[in-house]
């Protein structure tokens, strides 16, 4: 049964996942091509000075990439379920309704996390080639909330897309935008270091929000 769910979900998100993976990899490569260019071709001293003294962030281009990944995967996975109320087909399958939706969300979360992990791994790995460990660590602390925002976006968009009524959807969108905004506060490296665990806690809370949408659907909110 799990195999069948994974099979269907992968059909829906396969293209967008591979596309996002490719784009993200190119962006990370682009970031370090630029770093290499600055260090080797241009003025390495002023570049270092910018990073160490002026706390410049050389990877701003990465800021909203995880958010877009989470958003597009959730849209690709759940919009086909609500078109023509196809979610009825899923809920009619001979298994517990909540369990099947949670399995779908779990698979989407897994794919989102996998893609973001590849980005993060490449970003830190390539960073370690150019920068000392301390700078790599700070860049991790800076980007971690952005990556967490990607995962939060996945859960929030899944919840919003599955919500049966537009009025509620718009309300949740406004709430979601404000919530996701908190992951991007601060313009200095490592600003949100002490918020990482609270962010993880909040994400854990919203991870099961889709169950509320399903509950509302089954109550007849259509």
């Amino acid at each position: 049964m799990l195999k069948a769910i994974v099979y269907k979900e992968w059909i829906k998100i396969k293209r967008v996942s591979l596309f996002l993976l490719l784009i993200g990899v190119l962006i990370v490569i682009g970031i370090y091509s630029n770093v290499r260019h600055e260090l080797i071709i241009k003025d390495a001293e002023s570049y270092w000075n910018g990073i160490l003294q002026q706390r410049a962030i050389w990877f701003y281009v990465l800021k909203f990439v995880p958010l877009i990944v989470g958003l597009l995967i959730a849209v690709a996975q759940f919009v086909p379920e609500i078109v023509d109320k196809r979610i009825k087909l899923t809920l009619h399958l001979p298994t517990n309704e909540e369990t099947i939706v949670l399995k779908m969300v779990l698979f989407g979360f897994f794919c989102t996390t996998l893609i973001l992990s590849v980005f993060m791994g490449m970003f830190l790995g390539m960073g370690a080639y150019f920068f000392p460990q301390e700078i790599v660590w700070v860049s991790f602390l800076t980007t971690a909330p952005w990556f967490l925002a990607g995962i939060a976006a996945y859960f929030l968009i899944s919840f919003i897309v599955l919500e049966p009524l537009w009025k509620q959807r718009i309300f949740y969108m406004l709430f979601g935008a404000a919530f996701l905004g908190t992951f991007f506060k601060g313009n200095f490296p490592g600003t949100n270091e002490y918020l990482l665990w609270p962010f993880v806690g909040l994400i854990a809370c919203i991870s099961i929000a889709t169950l509320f949408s399903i509950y509302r659907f089954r109550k007849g909110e259509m």
Partner: protein
Amino acid sequence: MENVVECINLTHYYGKKMVYENLNFNIKRGSILGLLGKNGAGKTTTINIINGFLTPKSGKCMILGEDSRYLSSKTKAQIGYLIEGHVQYAFMNIYQIEKFYSGFFPNWKREAYFDLMAKLKVTPKQKISTMSCGQRSQVALGLILAQDPELLVLDDFTLGLDPGYRRLFIDYLRDYAKETNKTIFTTSHIIQDMERLIDDCMIMDYNRVLAYMPVKKFLNDFREYTIELENPDIGVALEGPIVNLEKMHNKLEIYTYAAPEEIKGYLDAKGLGYTNFKEVDMSLEDAFIGLTGKY
């Protein structure tokens, strides 16, 4: 004979708008009930309640002995469900969708599905979204046949089908249901050909059931008479044995369960002058329109 579906005192409202109150019906094993009604009469609401997608304001539906609000996985496996418009996972092709569903049903009969698919002129990788409505109806039907459920719940399956596919769908379904003693609950607002399929009919108008009986009895008992009024300006009330009326100029169509003599007696008693009294043969579609009205 055991009831596969029992709906008891179903009442539902959307906000303050009443869909129906105290609706009662049941479906015996092996029989086919058609819930016929115009758009907005409450057909899909009933389907949603039966499938557990909607909690009625009061009353309940028992499906294969279980309350529809709390259907177990085992019971859901025994219910084949066709959504209005033959909606399926349109992003899949016919092989992918079969592979997906087969993972949920231990007694999956893939031959039944592929036998039907072999008749379709679709390419192996063609997505369902690019198929015609008729082809999609066959995919949906094939999946139900492969699932081999005890109860088939079909929501307005005739929607969008051309006459050929509609006839094919109905004949295939009827043969399958009768050979294997399946129970079917179907809704439709297109009545053409439905008498080929259903055993019992429940005709709904807004808020109420107008008729609930075996379709043969309905076709036998429900009658249309036409008369020509001598005074076309005279008004005829909906009362006594008259169930519905349609008036055009001096021609009056009378729909009733009464025999010709009773209607003639009633018209005479009311002092209505008329000529050319005729009884008209009706198909199920004619009778449906006669009962529910043209508007």
